[in-house]
């Protein structure tokens, strides 16, 4: 049963990055099930994330569709970090046109351009269209791109 509920969570997308689900984002900290009673522990990414309420609702709905009758969604305070993101998730981001987060010790460096791979990039703004992204421009190919913040 736990497997099935867990699979259901993989259907919950991050509404601001619709190519990623909350499991590969590293937002799910645990899932316990007793028959049709399920308890999910999850952590939000950025503290002011406006998608939080929506994500909670989607978790609830996905688990109910998988057969759960009672769903408890617990928000944990454990800080989220981009280190929790899977390699596949980072690859999906790159394919989506967003530079994936760098390993934590490299947090202060600029990411390579997701289009042409050049390191000649310029930070245009530490803020982007969502809380988790920054705005860059590639000097080599001219692409303006978003980069996921390394936190």
């Amino acid at each position: 049963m736990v497997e099935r509920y867990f699979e259901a969570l993989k259907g919950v997308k991050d509404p601001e990055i619709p190519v990623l689900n909350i499991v590969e984002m590293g937002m799910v900290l645990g899932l316990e099930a007793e028959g049709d009673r399920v308890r999910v522990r999850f952590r939000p990414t950025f503290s002011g994330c406006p998608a939080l309420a929506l994500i909670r609702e989607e978790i609830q709905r996905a688990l109910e569709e998988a057969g759960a009758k009672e769903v408890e969604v617990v928000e944990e305070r454990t800080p989220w970090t981009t280190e929790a993101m899977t390699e596949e998730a980072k690859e999906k981001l790159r394919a989506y046109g967003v530079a994936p987060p760098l390993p934590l010790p490299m947090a202060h460096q600029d990411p390579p351009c997701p289009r042409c791979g050049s390191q000649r990039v310029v930070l245009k703004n530490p803020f982007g269209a969502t809380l988790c992204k920054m705005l860059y421009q590639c000097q080599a190919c001219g692409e303006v791109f978003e980069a996921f913040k390394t936190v």
Partner: protein
Amino acid sequence: MLDPYLKEALVGKLTALADDEVVLAQRLSEWVAHAPILEEDIAIANLAQDELGHAKLYLELRQELDGSDPDQVVFLRDPLDYGNAVLVELPRGNWAFTMVRQYLFDAYEGLWLREAASSRYAPLAEVAARILKEERFHLKHSSLWVERLALGTEESHRRAQEALDLLFPYARQLFRPLEGEEALVEAGFVPDLKALEGPYLEEVGSFLKGVGLRVPEGGYVPKSRKEHTEHLWSLLAEMQSVARWDREAKAW
């Protein structure tokens, strides 16, 4: 179990921390659709959203202590009960004023949070560590702007200096502890503000001088967080209008 005296002091401190964030967020949000360029419009909305997220974290810690509802605390409390510093309530002014204020506040928050991340009150340490990750981007943004304005044109430099002259004494209020805060410092719950002021003046001073700005001396520093300007009244009247008009309003 917390000593009742410590608990009361902690509730007061958490509320003051949240009040700074809420009031600053409201001032920042006034720029939405009015910022000088589109990217900045987006950035300032991000900043406001982050600050509100931080206020929520502090108020949830308060809720664990006294059961208070964060929405009630923010939307139904009167100006005289707000404990924000005067710095954050002053009208947004021009872009230089907003960016200099943000820089002065971000630099203070960075120092405070780094210390608070090792608070002996574990829930606060966790929250501080989380906020710190996001604040790094705030400081990068605001310091780049202060630099750009200070080294830009004669006019942008003049405006940045004018803002700094007015704001600097207010920034120093951030280092005035609340009543009862000594007990929290002694318990290792919160950083000692008095010990942070020196490093702040050094860090901010050397950055500002580096970009050719003069760090003002003297000026009036508000003595307590009970002191406010008239500007807080109109700010809260606007911010709280919907909640006060319809207490059952659950969605927007």
